[in-house]
């Protein structure tokens, strides 16, 4: 019995409402945090940090953003890439045009601007659901693609349309090595996860889930659908906007409008579905899966002597995503996070099969 619930009596509601109710989970998270903050920096090389861990962390943040909207509030969005783009270009323009504002404040302001756009494009959700809402958010995606490509003010009239982020100066700390960037992203990921977890175990999160599960009953206990939906759009796009800032400023450094295309929106949707809708942990699992799979496909066949072309790898990638998404949607809408939970429950009872 690796996981033991028996014998751990919770003596107060505060303990019962803690994020990690089981001692094993608490120890687990401390170990993971120690590895993330201290262990990895000791061993990871530049490639691992730059090509895997930093994008993984940023995508996890974006996936948490989408998960709050889709997994918790039940509102589908195909425009997460657009919210990331809004965040990235807002931060770029703020840094460019108002250099006296500290960069970190720019980041938060960019998140707020993305939240504002999120509210506006969340308005259709008050009237339409499901597929129609998906199409409405898709419209935002195309609008953003168009605006950042064609409205040259956003890209400061650079001839190629590609822009470069200023040096990352966080209140005097110049973040320029991969390790420092990793720590910065890790800090954002931890903060976002905690923030999201607190929201979903509070009144606001419950009102989102109530809307997701049965909006009619939600209304009758005094939840206002408009507040619940628009707040979910706002928080979700704030987080997505922040992730966009990190993606642009920390991961890419310089980028083109294409960096936040529909492709990004779909990838995030895949992460949330595969990782687990309605789970913060699932957002991390989904991001990890989607970041690691292409690398795995690139390296493993080569190791066993099979030579795959780059095109083949990317085809395989999409085939695997496609299959997994169908399988998860049919059998396990709660994704990898749910599989992990089932595994834990098994461990909790093991070796007694009762």
């Amino acid at each position, binding site marked *: 019995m690796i996981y033991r619930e028996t014998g751990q009596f919770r003596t107060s*509601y*505060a303990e*019962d*409402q803690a994020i990690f109710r089981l001692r094993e989970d608490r120890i687990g998270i401390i170990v993971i945090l120690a590895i993330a903050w201290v262990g990895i920096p000791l061993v990871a090389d530049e490639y691992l940090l730059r090509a895997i861990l930093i994008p993984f962390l940023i995508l996890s943040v974006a996936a948490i953003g989408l998960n709050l909207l889709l997994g918790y509030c039940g509102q589908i969005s195909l425009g997460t890439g657009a919210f990331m783009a809004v965040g990235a270009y807002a931060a770029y323009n703020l840094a460019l045009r108002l250099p006296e504002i500290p960069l970190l404040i720019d980041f938060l302001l960019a998140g707020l601007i993305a939240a504002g756009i999120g509210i506006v494009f969340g308005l259709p959700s008050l009237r339409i659901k499901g597929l129609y809402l998906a199409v409405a958010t898709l419209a935002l995606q195309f609008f953003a693609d168009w605006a950042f490509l064609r409205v040259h003010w956003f890209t400061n009239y650079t001839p190629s349309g590609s822009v470069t982020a200023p040096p990352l100066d966080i209140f005097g700390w110049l973040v320029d090595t991969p390790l420092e960037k990793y720590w910065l992203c890790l800090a954002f990921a931890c903060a976002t996860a905690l*923030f999201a977890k*607190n*929201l979903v*175990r*509070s*009144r*606001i999160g*419950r*009102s989102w*889930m*109530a809307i*997701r*599960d*049965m909006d*009619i*009953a*939600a*209304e*009758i*206990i*005094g*939840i*206002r659908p408009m507040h619940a939906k628009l*707040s979910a759009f706002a928080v979700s796009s704030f987080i997505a906007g922040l992730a966009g800032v990190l993606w642009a400023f920390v991961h890419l450094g310089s980028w083109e409008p294409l960096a936040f295309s529909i492709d990004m929106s779909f990838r995030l949707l895949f992460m949330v579905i595969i990782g687990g809708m*309605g789970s913060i942990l699932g957002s991390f699992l989904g991001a990890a899966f989607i970041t690691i799979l292409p690398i795995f496909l690139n390296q493993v066949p080569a190791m066993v002597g099979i030579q795959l072309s780059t095109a083949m790898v990317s085809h395989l990638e999409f085939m695997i995503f496609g299959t997994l998404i169908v399988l998860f949607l049919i059998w396990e809408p709660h994704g990898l996070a749910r599989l992990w939970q089932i595994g834990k429950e098994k461990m909790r009872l093991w070796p007694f099969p009762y």
Partner: protein
Amino acid sequence: MATATVTPPREAAERSVRRARQIGEVLLAVENISLRFGGVRALSNVSFDIRRGEIRAIIGPNGAGKSSMLNVINGFYQPQEGRIIWKGRALSRMRPYDAAKGGIARTFQNIALFKGMSTLDNIMTGRILKMRASFFEQALWIGRGKSEELRERAFVERILDFLEITHIRHVPVGKLPYGLQKRVELARALAMEPELLLLDEPMAGMNLEEKEDMCRFILDVNEEFGTTVALIEHDMSVVMDISDRVVVLDYGRLLADGTPEEVRNDPAVIEAYLGVSHG
């Protein structure tokens, strides 16, 4: 027809004396309510009132308009004609949010729980209107964000205890058997500390034991907290046993209104309703 007897006769007599003292002024009145769906007249010119502290039954054959009546009362349907007088204030229409805010809670004929959430979270949603924490207090789990959660959790625990469902607090409600789901739905309504509790067939589909439990809970809620109850029920013995006054609807019209005794002896009711077997 299944029967569930909860109160022996002598106790019932004692109760009616006590009740005469408990029942107060008119809490809610519906006046000349008419509701149509296209060509279907779900309600035609229905008027009755509900007094504070009483248990008011609404009965009638299938399709009589009972559920529609509850939907009008809590603002879910907008009647074409008539008005609602809630605590002395006349309204031409009630909105669901205002009904909730004003102290009206309800359960549904087809259970309307939040399937993906645990029993505890479902009932906690009933406390949403009592919570004031700001967004940042919730996001950072500080101040009222934390203290309210603990306070409301303690309140909800008392309800779990009262309805004898503490053992399922962490179970997702989608996994619960039907009878328990009905109980969780009642718990969620009670969590709102309503002045008026609307119950749409709270005992439908239950076995005898579950029905008796449910009757006991309804009576306890009414007596201990003074909550006014309006319930729709098909089981006549339950209705006769626990209600103070009964409204009978038939084809959307008000057929009779009175004490269980009066209604039972009303020739129109006997013909239209009691003569026909239900359940």
